[in-house]
């Protein structure tokens, strides 16, 4: 059965821009994220990332593109058996032409940048929810993405940590000049957006903050 989930979507994200996407559940936000993130095959229409057309892109091409897209998701999905710094290193390992030492030290720098300098050797099991989310952010950023996709990064965090995480994200994204597309329901963080979008029944509307 085929059903049209997303309709008349026209969205451009510029480098360094933070776009927030809100909308009721089931309206297609996550579908849009997975499409933009090259996780799903585009069936109709056109998505262009870094100048590459995703419609009809091969599995290989999408996998290559994903290396340049950072993803932060609700269930952080850290690798349980790796320590915080090893998890972050999984991100920097995607960069080509760096020695193990360089990658390891980059991973440590990222963890310090997210304020986890004291928890380098801890397993995800021993970290709190906010800390895990910050590790996930560090991991996403360690791969030096040009586009960052975030799906409710603050959902499992209390308001203060949520705020901190988002501030951190904004700061780092601006430094790196990478575009951010963030899906959120959290009204407390709407103010960090450059642009606010509302989605309903697969249609996208601009919303003024």
């Amino acid at each position, binding site marked *: 059965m085929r059903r049209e989930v997303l309709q008349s979507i026209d969205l451009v994200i510029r480098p360094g821009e933070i776009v927030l996407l809100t909308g009721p559940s089931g309206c297609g936000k996550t579908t849009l*994220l*997975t499409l933009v993130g090259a996780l799903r095959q585009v069936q109709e229409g056109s998505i262009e990332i870094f100048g590459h057309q995703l419609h009809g892109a091969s599995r290989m091409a999408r996998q*290559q593109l*994903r*290396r340049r897209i950072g993803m932060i998701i609700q269930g952080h*999905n*850290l690798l349980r058996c790796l320590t915080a710094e090893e998890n972050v290193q999984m991100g920097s390992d995607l960069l080509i032409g760096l020695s193990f030492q360089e990658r390891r030290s980059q991973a440590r720098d990222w963890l310090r940048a997210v304020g986890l300098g004291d928890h380098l050797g801890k397993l995800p099991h021993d970290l709190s929810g906010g800390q895990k989310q910050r590790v996930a952010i560090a991991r996403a950023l360690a791969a030096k993405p040009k586009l960052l996709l975030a799906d409710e990064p603050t959902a499992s965090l209390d308001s203060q940590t949520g705020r901190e995480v988002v501030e951190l994200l904004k700061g780092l994204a601006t430094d790196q000049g990478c575009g951010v597309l963030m899906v959120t329901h959290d009204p407390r963080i709407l103010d960090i957006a450059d642009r606010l979008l509302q989605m309903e029944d697969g249609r996208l509307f601009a919303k003024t903050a």
Partner: protein
Amino acid sequence: MLLLTRQPVRLAVALAGISFAGILMFMQLGFRDGLFDASVTVHRLLDADAVLISPRSSSSVSMAGFPRRRLVQAMADPDVVGITPVHWNLLLWRNPQNRSTRSILALGFEPSDPLLIDPVLVTKAQVLTQRGRVLFDDQSRPEFGPVAQWFKQGRIVESEISGKRVRVAGLVSLGTSFGADGNLLASSETFLELLPNTPAGSIEVGLIRLKPGADSVGVIKRLSSALPADVKVLSKQGFIDFEQNYWRSSTSIGFIFTLGAAMGFIVGCVIVYQVLYSDVSDHLPEYATLMAMGYPLSSLLGVVAREGFYLAVFGYLPAYFAGEGLYWLVRSATKLPVAMDVNRALTVFSMILVMCMVSAALAMRRLADADPADIF
């Protein structure tokens, strides 16, 4: 690697399973090779470069006779320097302690001719010139009676073979085999007395010794074409193979033990597959995350393959040492020459490796289910 060590229980189960499979394979193959090896203990000791046997002979327990003149004819070849005609048959030995009888492999030869490589025998064989004297193998099974023990104590050990009285005049050390639980050496004269129905001039085995440096393959070929079809010319190795081949192909022993080893292999496969499969399933979201980050599927398959490889290596080590221990146990209990050899150690290792890699390959199919879009 870390995927394994962070779950010590699962790791222990996996390693125990692999080790068990490995031990099973070691034991089955060890028994098989040990039994095949054991079947030729005497063959190996023979002082010969080539051997004549009757084409009707099928194994050491059913040797047929051929005319002794064939061996003398072989002497005509310029490269042949010595021959030893040997009578070879199973005789019924009466246990001197409890009077029960049991088959024993008896070799009859001229005491002045060399029979075995062991030079000590030449002096020992001199006692056989007296009629009714035999040399007893001290490694024979205990069912033949405490012959070696009594002899060492200085007692006169006498027994009966086919109703004829014989006296043990010395001990030799040969070893038991498949077909023969014990061995006995006698002079041709004594031997013929014990088996009076042997046709005159008929022997079962002819040993041929060649000039040092002679081309044995060429000589064997020459002899084969020169001698009539009532004898078969074999190299010493050929004689050994002839015997082993009988046990391998004409009996179910080889099949049984190979099947046992195959069972071990399959059991191991199932265990490793279970462990790897559930491991992949448990970590599926993480694999999906890695794919979402842009890691190619092949690198994830590599992780599973490496997991399988580590399991193979670390499962093999305990299997190897347990195998050594069990071989020692078997040796001391059965006197079968079961020992670890490089060949078998490598065979079992490669089987374990194949087992783990096949299981890993099967478990990888689960990995194909990892859809990066599912992580949201």
